């Protein structure tokens, strides 16, 4: 919209309110990501917000149509890069559902541990950033230190810190080393104290509550009509969690509660994510306690890359290795949709394969992209500072927003 101001605009006509246009643009410290909002403001109150996204659109869906199945994993972990293992394992489960591979119990438990660690890491960033936006900077520094611990655990599991590319179709590329178990245990020991300290710093803090209670609320009906999922929907009062609604990777072996808010404002979103961190911690403890022995990958040689010493020693492994890398393995035709509970909601993979080397069509159901369209409605009539708080409490991640 082009706004041309003429001289008479400057003469104040009392009957028609003068609106100023504020551009919360692409490079803005408050928008923890790259999206733009042109806010039509009456003084400090937002009258209308029009958002523009797509500033880091990298065409994941077109890219996925040009890569064999096991090469798509590095794309998926650049979608929601705050909790990339969940995307990877979600993608592997979709392919396993297409191929009909049966996953051993130990792999499912290992996957639950890695995914819950990723969920904690995602919620650490979101809640620490809510703390920053209300002015509590110390929380971020302490919580980010814990995220470094999780980065170190990822390095032991898959070698990378952030874009993890963890696991393979059919399981993991290597079992967890004893050093990894030690690091997970030390993390489980000293994370609760830091989390309790962070929670006591903010959750009953007068300033924090005055700022966040009632800021950017959304009712359950409106959230459902905007296809909300994840912590933002649970904060609005609907207890929908893919781990409970459609249990995958043996989530039904663990008992955990789903935290549900009441009026869907920033305080509820903060508290839902805090409680989910505690639940994830208890899930990891239960998983470690009950983890069965067994192989760390399914016995499916034509899709699982054999380890190097086997490739050099026996003939079949060499042939399988060659076929997988060159992508000559025949993939069954079919359409499959599989969803996992990502850091921000139901992360779905809709895969159509026509038997060829690459998927015929791969569509990602990206929760951020879907629930961010309700942002203008949530901030209408609120102050500018509340709008920034609402945006960071929705945990909109640019990589997942514009795929």
């Amino acid at each position: 919209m082009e706004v041309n101001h003429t001289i008479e605009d400057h003469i104040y006509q009392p009957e028609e309110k003068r609106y100023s246009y504020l551009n919360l643009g692409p490079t803005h410290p408050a928008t923890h990501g790259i999206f733009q909002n042109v806010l039509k403001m009456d003084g400090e109150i937002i009258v209308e917000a029009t958002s523009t996204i797509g500033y880091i659109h990298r065409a994941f869906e077109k890219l996925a149509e040009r890569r064999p199945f096991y090469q798509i994993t590095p794309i998926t972990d650049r979608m929601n890069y705050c909790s990339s293992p969940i995307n990877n394992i979600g993608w592997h489960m979709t392919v396993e559902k297409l191929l009909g591979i049966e996953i051993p119990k130990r792999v499912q438990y290992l996957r639950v541990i890695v995914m819950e660690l990723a969920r904690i890491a995602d919620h650490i960033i979101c809640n620490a950033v809510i703390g920053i936006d209300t002015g509590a900077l110390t929380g971020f520094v302490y919580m980010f230190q814990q995220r470094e611990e999780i980065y170190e655990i990822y390095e032991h599991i898959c070698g990378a810190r952030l874009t993890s590319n963890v696991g393979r179709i059919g399981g993991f590329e290597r079992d967890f080393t004893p050093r990894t178990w030690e690091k997970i245990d030390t993390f489980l020991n000293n994370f609760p104290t830091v989390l309790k300290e962070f929670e006591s710093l903010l959750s009953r803090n007068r300033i924090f509550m005055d700022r966040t209670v009632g800021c950017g609320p959304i009712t359950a009906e409106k959230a459902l009509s905007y296809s909300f999922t994840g912590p933002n929907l649970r904060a609005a009062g609907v207890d929908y969690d893919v781990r409970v609604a459609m249990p995958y990777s043996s989530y039904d072996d663990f008992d955990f509660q789903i935290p549900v808010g009441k009026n869907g404002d920033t305080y509820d979103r903060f508290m839902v994510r805090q409680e989910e961190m505690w639940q994830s911690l208890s899930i990891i403890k239960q998983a470690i306690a009950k983890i069965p022995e067994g192989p760390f990958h399914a016995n499916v040689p034509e899709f699982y890359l054999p380890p190097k010493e086997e490739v050099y020693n026996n003939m079949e492994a060499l042939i399988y290795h060659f076929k997988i890398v060159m992508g000559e393995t025949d993939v069954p035709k079919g359409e499959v949709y599989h969803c996992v509970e990502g850091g921000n909601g139901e992360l779905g993979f809709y895969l159509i394969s026509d038997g060829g080397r690459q998927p015929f069509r791969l569509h990602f159901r990206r929760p951020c992209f879907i629930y961010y369209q309700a942002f203008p409605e949530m901030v209408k009539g609120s102050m500018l500072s509340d709008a920034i708080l609402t945006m960071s409490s929705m945990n909109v991640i640019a990589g997942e927003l514009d795929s």
Partner: protein
Amino acid sequence: MEDQGLIQYAPIGLMFLFAAGFVGVTMIATHALGPKRKTAIKLESFECGIQPQGNARIPFNIKYFLVALLFVLFDVEVIFMYPWAVNFRDLGIPGFIEMIVFMSALLIGFFYIIKKGALKWED
């Protein structure tokens, strides 16, 4: 206090000299040493990376100016209390009464403002 007169204020004068000197030198040094490139785009207002539209000089709601002016007014009142607080004992009761008169005058003004609703924010 053997050296009466202005000499006792020399240290304060020196401090002001140093302050003004430091500010002056750094300003001039950075201005002289720093390279300057006055291009058209650089002189435009920064609008988070996109082309600025419209004009920033539009009439704002009056309540912002009112709050600012009233703040200045009552801030000056507080400044008058500093010397009073320093010489509180020496001035004794008469000084106290004068300050009460001074403050009550401004208090009446404050009530007038509240009655007129100048500080009402949510219109």
